[in-house]
């Protein structure tokens, strides 16, 4: 699925990622944990192609296609989906219009016919219901006036509508109450299958009580310094990260 080799990236002349190597095969869920400022969100943004970051070296490939130099939208069309930590509000752009535009951009890229409004609405209503959202959600502007929980559910709604190959969840669990956390986890579990992958970036174990990861990576100062199974999460919860610096 995704292969990241020796990735170095900076912003405003400050190097954040200092040689990331990461491979997530299809069908697997990986987790990255690390302190604030360790570079987790930078990695998520660099994977998505955020042009605010400078790629200094390394490469990223999706299903053996090199996407290192690809535009943001072409990466998305190749199957990368970033669940934003802080989704932006865009007043005046309706959720339904936005979602259908995004979905049809993907369908066009895949050589499929555009989905008409009725089929789209029927499809979206099923997902909304599973997320505990009212149909009127589609009439609202993108994330405008949404609560923290609604913003994250909106991201999951987009994830399930677009159905990408790789979902990168950038601290999607932050600021969620238990009910919203369960809903988000339910959405991610519905998404994952043997043909796609999930990368979860988080500080806490609580989301991982609902989504079982295959591999856990720990990040310190722009590098992945330890990889292993769920026991790593428990160790971090108990001991923090200082033991990794020895």
């Amino acid at each position: 699925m995704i292969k990241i080799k020796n990735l170095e990236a900076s912003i405003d002349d400050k190097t954040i990622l200092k040689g990331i190597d990461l491979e997530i095969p299809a069908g697997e869920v990986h987790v990255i944990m690390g302190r604030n400022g360790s570079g987790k969100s930078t990695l998520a943004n660099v994977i998505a192609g955020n042009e605010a970051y400078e790629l200094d070296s390394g490469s990223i490939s999706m299903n053996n296609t090199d996407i290192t130099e690809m535009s943001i939208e072409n990466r998305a069309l190749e199957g990368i989906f970033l669940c934003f930590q802080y989704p932006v509000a865009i007043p005046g752009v309706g959720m339904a219009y936005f979602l259908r535009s995004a979905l049809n951009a993907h369908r066009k890229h895949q050589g499929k016919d555009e989905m008409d409004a009725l089929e789209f609405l029927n499809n979206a209503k099923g997902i909304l219901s599973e997320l505990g959202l009212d149909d009127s959600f589609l009439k609202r502007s993108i994330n405008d006036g949404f609560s923290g929980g609604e913003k994250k559910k909106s991201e999951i709604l987009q994830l399930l509508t677009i159905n990408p190959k790789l979902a990168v969840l950038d601290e999607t669990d932050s600021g969620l109450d238990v009910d919203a956390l369960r809903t988000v986890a339910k959405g991610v579990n519905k998404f994952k299958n043997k043909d796609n992958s999930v990368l979860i970036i988080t500080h806490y174990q609580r989301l991982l009580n609902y989504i079982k990861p295959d591999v856990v990576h720990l990040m310190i100062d722009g590098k992945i310094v330890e990889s292993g199974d769920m026991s790593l999460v428990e160790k971090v919860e108990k001991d923090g990260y200082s033991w990794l610096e020895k």
Partner: protein
Amino acid sequence: MIDSIKKNSLEFFNTNGLPNKKLENWKFTSSKNFKNFSKSSSSINEIQKIKSDELSIVFVNGTLDKDSLKSFKYSHLLEVKNLNELNSKKLLHCSKNFFNETMFNLGMSEFENGSYLSFKNNSVIKDVINIKNYFFENEENKRISSFNIFHINEGSEISIIEEDIKENHSIFNLKLNKFICENSSIFKYGKSFNDDSQTHSLSYNYYQIEKDVALSVDSMVKSSFFNKEFIEVDLNNIGSDAKINILNLGKKEQHLDNNILINHNAEHCTSFQHVRNVLNHKSTAVFNGKVIVAEGAQQTDSNQSNKNLLLSLESNAFSNPQLEIYADDVSCGHGSTTGALDENSIFYLRARGINYSSAQKILIKAFAKEVIDDFSLSSLQDISEIALDSWIDG
């Protein structure tokens, strides 16, 4: 009576000449092209007959085409007079500020055959009336001045959409209008200027508002090389509400300019100004907005907002929102923002597979559509949205 006003206006213009940048309302507006235009001598009689319909009132070069009233469905609710026949100070009264404007005085001195159109008491018209302004002029660089008065009498509900239709694009259209809204009337007035022309348009619109009136003024401008509009609203009696929503779309070297003054002269009135400019290339926009709350105009609720979206480094927006408050129990807000498209929003849309150009268009439309959504006339919303789409795609 009108002759003496015209005479005084001519004297004022001859004394003061064209406006210059020392004047507050012209600080960011050049009048240098005005001298290229001379007064039109075309007469309505020389002009071909316009085919009208049952919901339209036609003006040709600013003069009412009375033939259009024959097919107008609601002519029985309308009283029409030539302004020469008006002897009422109240009806002819206009803004003192306008009479300090040299171009207003020029227009006042030059107009011929102005009309007074009065909708009778309790004229409730659910249809939207189209005012079609045809401009015919065989010669280049001519100035056509007009002055008309619209009187919405007590208990009436009137909706008007004004449209300019020009064959000659080098016209300077100097338009003066007065609107009187009597007690408990509802008046919705919309304009959509949409012809991508080289027209110069300068208009002075004065609204005299009485008790418990609901006034809305909506406009979308995406044409005219030069478009400057003065709006002054006098809220003279209690319980009235004035809403002004304006969207200007500027390209090339267009100049789009709004000067709005709302006078809260009575208590318990509300007003709302919302002006948005989207500017590309070397276009410029000016917003001079002012709310004056007079002493005693308690419980005034007023809001004023100007937002400018700059799509190029060479476009410019000048914004000057002002409040003058002489009462102590009021709620007044104002604000202005100017900026480019938000890069985080573009990133968000692109991260969902929407290409850069489409993402830009979506955000421009969203910015502009917030004003259109506030238009009180749904048919103007439809017209404006189509015009907006073609502007964005163009």
